[in-house]
């Protein structure tokens, strides 16, 4: 199962990002794991400086904005 982590200090954009990923996975009928990472040390550990960031199976795939629906779909299906 794919594991998603949304990196962010808990701002609105980060919450939106997590919601978008969950909703898209439900739409596609694919089970995923998703968690929010709010600990600053952990976020920086991924080398991400601009949030929200998205980590897919421990690899950073996105940072600095709410991702587009197209890229979310690509990650879930990849």
């Amino acid at each position: 199962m794919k594991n998603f982590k949304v990196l962010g200090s808990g701002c609105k954009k980060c919450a939106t990002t997590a919601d978008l990923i969950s909703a898209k996975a439900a739409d596609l009928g694919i089970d995923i794991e998703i968690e929010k990472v709010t600990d600053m040390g952990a976020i920086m550990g991924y080398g991400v400086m601009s949030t929200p960031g998205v980590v897919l199976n421990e690899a950073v795939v996105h940072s600095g904005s709410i991702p587009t629906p197209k890229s979310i779909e690509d990650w879930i299906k990849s």
Partner: protein
Amino acid sequence: MFEIFTKLADWSTYSVLGLTPKTHLAEAVHFFVEDVTKIFFLLVLVIFAIGLFRSMLTPERVRKVVAGRSRAVSYPMAVGLGAVTPFCSCSSVPLFIGFLEAGIPLGVTMAFLIASPMINEVAVVVLAAAVGWKIAVLYVVAGLTVGILGGLAIEFFKLEKWVEEYVWKIRMGETVLQQGATTLKQRVDYAWGQVKEIFGRIWIYVLIGVGIGAALHGFVPQEFFLKYASADNLLAVPSAVLVGIPLYSNATGVIPIVEALLSKGVPIGTVLALMMSVAAISLPEMIILRKVLKPQLIATFIGILFVAFITVGYLFNALLT
């Protein structure tokens, strides 16, 4: 170039609503329609144009470029890039840690964080449209200078001790440099995304700002401001800065108020001090920064900005009246 918005306001105020010219209400409505349409139009245009250029710029890149430079280069660079780099205020904390971790001095990092909210391209263009290029350029120069001096002051007093200890212990992983936009289509998509995002975030502030500006313009008599806010009244500038602290808007939303105050004869320095205070000292931003800065440094930070804005106010009032 902007006559079309005046004509639109003429038409909707006098023809559609049938208001009598020269009345308070007509003046206020006219101001509201003209400014809202003009600012919304400029916003879309400017955000899109800038978006095309900044699609290559990210905080990660700025960090890489600024790290390891001498102070003579890093301070101007930090405020210049702070003014144009896109980042949302909730990224202030990771950005702050990331800069320090790269060995960028605290003063330079703070200079970046001071300049960033104060100067943004949208505010500058709208300010230029409202009150002329000369004042817009003055505003930018003042903002960059405040950023540099603020950073230098923090460095001079060696305030690193007031940064939360855990910050110094964080080690960053390999920075992922986001692939910048490469094709024209990606750049257009990015720019359009910026228009939707920024416009969606600030339209309400613009409406509120223009509403207040229209009320000031139509209903508050000129003598009121001449009495309380003229350059002779030395308390006017500090009061403007104090009033601006609890008010939180972005620089763009304040501009209609700026325009109305100027048209009522309030001196330029006082108005710029208010604008800087509203844009740069905001409670939500301070709460976010509290995660990395001890209360003493937050207080010093606000204190430095407070003094800087008052100085800017007096200076412009003295030079331009």
